[in-house]
């Protein structure tokens, strides 16, 4: 296999980075693109007639085309946002708010990241709509049968997480979408975790909205995408008002630009858009299927290895992604985390912004290792070795 590590200047010999579900590392091509903007342009877009502004605008808009092609959407269906969180808030505030009435249902699940839950929880309280939780199966999965039972003609929105950031499970998106549409509900897909390794075609999946963040797919922070079917985006008011989002301004009213510009008020993070383009290039050159196979293989090796260590609890033995969630028995996860940190192994402990999954698992804090394309089998071995040492260390201390 090609060694991808050399593309990532953050890595060095003994550093094992397995926290990619939080954010991915950044390849040199992306860093160079960000620098390219500041070094060679550093101008505003959409406004200048001079060459630099014209070219920067071209790159900004070409990136929109690239992002659209990446997920099978039309260019005008791609809205730049600050990331998944702000995309989902925009939706809840401006789509949810408009269509939800007292007594309507919003279907969510305990697997949701807080950003895919709290905007709906808030809008439910505001509109009098009800949140309905799809019961998870014994493994913590979202299964079609339970979704069927939760849907009704009162359901207006189904907020679905494509890949859970704690359990690493893939949701049955296509089936859910068909069932949701059959009762007249719209589907909002959170692709924050999926986008880095699952090929997504929004037309084929037929979801109504979807969101993702560049920083979880090798891109920079501060930029993400909201996809929406064109007629649905058209039906939404902007959330932010200001420059660059209006066609005409009168003293007492103004006329918004068409979508997507309507939702991009003010100066956007242009350098991050430059970076996003190169992140998509990188993923396409490697191939999402290849990335998926690679990280699933590493996760599987990790789970097998952890199973052979006594005193480790694994919470997602059948992970569908590069995410492995576990604890060392009797060791609070933050105690364990300090041990890994001392060994230069970067992973995460806590509730991972999904407290309801923790409640479901009966633990309020877990350790999470999440692999990506720059990890290799050597990283898995290091991680397993350090885990063994940690178990021994804490046992000797008397935990």
């Amino acid at each position, binding site marked *: 296999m090609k060694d991808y590590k050399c593309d990532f200047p953050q890595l060095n010999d003994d550093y094992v980075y397995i926290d990619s579900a939080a954010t991915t590392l950044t390849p040199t091509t992306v860093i160079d693109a960000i620098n390219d903007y500041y070094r060679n342009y550093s101008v505003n877009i959409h406004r200048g007639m001079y060459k630099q502004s014209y070219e920067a605008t071209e790159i900004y808009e070409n990136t929109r085309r690239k992002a659209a092609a990446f997920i099978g959407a039309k260019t005008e269906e791609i809205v730049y946002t600050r990331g998944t969180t702000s995309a989902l808030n925009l939706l809840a505030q401006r789509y949810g708010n408009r269509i939800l009435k007292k007594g309507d249902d919003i279907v969510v699940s305990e697997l949701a990241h807080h950003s895919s839950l709290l905007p709906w929880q808030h809008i439910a309280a505001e509109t009098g709509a009800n949140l309905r939780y799809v019961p998870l199966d014994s493994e913590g999965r979202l299964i079609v049968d339970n979704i069927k039972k939760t849907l009704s003609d009162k359901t207006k929105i189904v907020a679905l997480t494509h890949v859970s950031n704690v359990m690493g499970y893939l949701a049955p998106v296509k089936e859910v979408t068909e069932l949701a549409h059959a009762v007249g509900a719209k589907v909002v897909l959170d692709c924050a975790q999926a986008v880095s390794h699952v090929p997504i075609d929004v037309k084929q999946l037929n979801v109504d909205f979807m969101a993702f963040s560049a920083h979880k797919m090798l891109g920079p922070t501060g930029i993400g995408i909201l996809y929406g079917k064109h007629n649905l985006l058209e039906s939404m008011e902007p959330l932010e008002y200001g420059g660059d989002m209006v066609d005409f301004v009168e003293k007492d009213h103004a006329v918004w630009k068409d979508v997507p510009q309507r939702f991009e008020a003010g100066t956007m993070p242009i350098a991050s858009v430059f970076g996003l383009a190169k992140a998509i290039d990188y993923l396409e050159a490697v191939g999402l299927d290849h990335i998926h196979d690679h990280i699933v293989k590493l996760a599987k090796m990790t789970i097998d290895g952890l199973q052979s260590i006594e005193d480790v609890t694994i919470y997602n033995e059948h992970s569908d992604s590069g995410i492995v969630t576990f604890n060392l028995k009797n060791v*609070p*996860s*933050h*105690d364990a*985390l*300090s*041990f890994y*940190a*001392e060994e230069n192994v970067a992973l995460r*402990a*806590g*509730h991972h912004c999904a*407290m309801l999954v923790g409640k479901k698992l009966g633990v*309020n*804090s877990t350790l999470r290792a999440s692999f990506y394309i720059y990890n290799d089998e050597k990283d898995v071995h290091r991680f397993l070795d350090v885990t063994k040492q940690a178990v021994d*260390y804490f046992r000797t*201390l*008397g*935990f």
Partner: protein
Amino acid sequence: MADLSHMYREIIMEHYKHPRNKGLVDEEGYNKHRIKNPSCGDDITIQSKVEDGIVKDVRQDGSGCSICCASASVLTEKLKGMDVSEAKHFADAYLDLVAGNSYDESLDFGESKVFEGVRKFPSRIKCASIPWKAFKKTIE
């Protein structure tokens, strides 16, 4: 692991495994304050009773990492019997000690001195601090 072992001192393990003054009481005259750090699972409540300007009793309850739980346990023994201003001064000095700031070195820290081991682990300073911050709230 030298730094780590400097943090996980025997005293800490002893208090972690055998927490003192654990469990809250439902009696008059007690004030309590709860601090949660949900991102790491620490969730500690400190309860104190002040009479005639003296900290008559301190209790603790909750869950979390070993550093947080042990620190709550040590706190209850250390502060009991001090007068309120002395206890507040001590808590402030302790918070400075674990944060790596300059602190009042004239105080007798006793067992609580071992928590200075967290200085090398900036992300754990909070764990060692939570109970003491909660205590200060109970005597405000």
